[in-house]
């Protein structure tokens, strides 16, 4: 059963259309991440699901019922806000019971529920404090607690971690994942952080300028991005995009990076059958799919590969790996390699590209080939 369905949804503020024909559907228990840059309409979409904003056209269904005209309280959802939105004059306990109080749930059940959720989130010692007396991380927990006491059909999160410092963010991230596994409720999670989306979601919806770019599993989104926007947005450091040409090469095709020596990089056979000889393409390679030619990684995996000469301009060691800012055939490229294998700055060394992991996009439409 699908828990949430969004059909042909459009939303305009005056003449500005901020959501353009969104179609989305989440199975029961799924964790959907809405990801995209700031201003792409993620929060608007979430508000529409919550019933805080009206739709211009299209339908929102929760458990197969159209809820377009239902008030937020009748949609059986719970939401965690980026600002936490804790009621400042109420204690943590009152914050958590307010929703149950509005729904006339008896006092004994309220107490029991608060106790259960407080234990789950380890916030029992905070129950009698006011939000002003809590740290950022504690407020975050309380905000989640307020959502959890309700046991709703749908959890909505709007960038819940973006106000935390980096370390706490990683901690809370795994905690949210654990919570989802415990509670098992359908969740829609808005974030601009692609790592959060990758680590948490069962499916990711990538949005850009009000358009849903791709909706798929994290693995597919990462390995087979639908267009250059998705390819560039997901993954860090960013995917490299080279201007290139497809060249017919016997039965299959090769890629020739423009501006270089014209070395053909043979593509795996039986794929890319829509290519035409001489077609202008964008050749996408993730930074981790380069390896020093001296490793012979491609040979060991049994993939035919050709080395490309790489000039190293700068390095950024992160400790676990080293990011190389390089030039390939006159085009900028980022390469990630093991710290021990990093060549010296200024050197030109051969790197080979794992041709089974690359992405090709049409130069004009920027869509995946």
């Amino acid at each position, binding site marked *: 059963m699908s828990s949430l369905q969004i059909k042909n949804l459009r939303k305009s503020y005056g003449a500005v259309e901020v959501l353009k024909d969104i179609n989305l559907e989440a199975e029961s228990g799924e964790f959907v991440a809405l990801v995209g840059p700031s201003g792409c309409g993620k929060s608007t979409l979430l508000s529409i699901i919550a019933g805080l904003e009206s739709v211009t056209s299209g339908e929102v269904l929760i458990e197969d019922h159209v809820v377009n005209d239902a008030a937020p309280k009748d949609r059986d959802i719970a939401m965690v806000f980026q600002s936490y939105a804790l009621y400042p004059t109420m204690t943590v306990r009152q914050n958590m019971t307010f929703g149950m109080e509005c729904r006339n749930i008896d006092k004994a059940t309220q107490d029991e529920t608060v106790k259960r959720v407080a234990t789950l989130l380890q916030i029992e010692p905070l129950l009698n404090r006011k939000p002003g007396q809590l740290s950022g991380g504690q407020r975050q927990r309380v905000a989640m607690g307020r959502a959890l006491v*309700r046991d709703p059909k749908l959890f909505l999160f709007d960038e819940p971690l973006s106000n935390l410092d980096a370390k706490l963010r990683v901690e809370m991230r795994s905690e949210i994942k654990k919570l989802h596994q415990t509670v098992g409720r359908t969740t829609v999670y808005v974030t601009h952080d692609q790592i959060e989306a990758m680590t948490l979601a069962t499916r990711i919806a990538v949005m850009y300028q009000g358009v849903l770019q791709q909706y798929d599993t994290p693995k597919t989104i990462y390995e087979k991005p639908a267009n250059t926007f998705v390819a560039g947005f997901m993954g860090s450091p960013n995917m490299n995009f080279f201007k290139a040409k497809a060249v017919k090469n016997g039965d299959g095709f090769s890629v020739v990076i423009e501006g270089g020596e014209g070395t053909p990089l043979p593509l795996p056979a039986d794929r890319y059958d829509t290519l035409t000889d001489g077609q202008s393409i964008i050749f996408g390679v993730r930074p981790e799919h380069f390896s020093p030619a001296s490793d012979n990684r491609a040979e060991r995996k049994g993939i035919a590969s050709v080395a490309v000469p790489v000039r190293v301009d700068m390095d950024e060691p992160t400790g676990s790996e080293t990011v190389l800012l390089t030039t390939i055939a006159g085009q900028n490229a980022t390469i990630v390699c093991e710290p021990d294998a990093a060549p010296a700055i200024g050197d030109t060394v051969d790197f080979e590209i794992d041709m089974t992991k690359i992405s090709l996009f049409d130069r004009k439409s920027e869509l995946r080939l």
Partner: protein
Amino acid sequence: MADATTHQEFDPLATGSRSKQRRSRAIVYTLLVVFALIYISPLLIILTNAFRPLEEIVREGFISMPNSMSFGYWVEAWSTFCIGGTCEGVSRYFSNTLLMTVPATILSTAFGVVNGYALSKWRFKGDMWVFGLITLGVFLPAQMTLLPWAFVLGKLGLSNSIAGLVLVHTVQGISFTTLFCRNYFVSVPDDLIKAARIDGAGFWRIFRRIMLPLSPPILIVCVIWQFTGIWNEFLFGTVFTSGANQPITSAIVAFSGSGTGERHYNVEAASVIFAALPPLFIYVIGGKYFVRGLTSGAVK
């Protein structure tokens, strides 16, 4: 909130050399004392005259230290002095004003808080127009509203009554209280309202449980503003009421010299102080919160 008396972030006088600092400090304090004296002197003069016998005032003039003191004039002013044809002192007019000011303050504040809440948190088409029209009253001179009010009060049968003045002051006051409350509530994050709506709360429950508990600072501002404003108001009282129904501000106009016979400066001085005491009292008690409420946002 930082307390102004215990914590100063920036001392504007603490620059330059020691002697220069001392000199600028002296100038500042001299100026402050001079202005303080200018503002306090009318109060002092009236206060001293309220204790002096009449012949002493006539003999030595208004500005002089009292030779002998008596509380008798205060008693006379409160209960037996003849003003505007009745000889009940100012007590009658004092209670008139109280009966006008307290309900009008409560009503206009209550309406203002609800208006401010609705206009800042439940946006609707044309809400800015509604807000603009309501707050137009802030800028409209009271004289302009005299004729319409006379008409309305006449139609309602409230001419020459305290209830009529309560109505006028409530409606006139809503402009101010709405402006204050709306601007204060704008700083309450919208997310709080959204969260409460998802929690299942409606308009009034959100008002009661979330907005009102955040409102004390602005409620104090409204109450002080309305109480002192309505108490001291003079024009409506004079125009719409007469005789025994007048508020105290209108009644003591009789002292302006239109009466025949002997002037009782000392009793009149005491009467005037009775008239001025409540707003003064309110301001002394609440002045600190007044300034705080005007400058603070709802949520830190």
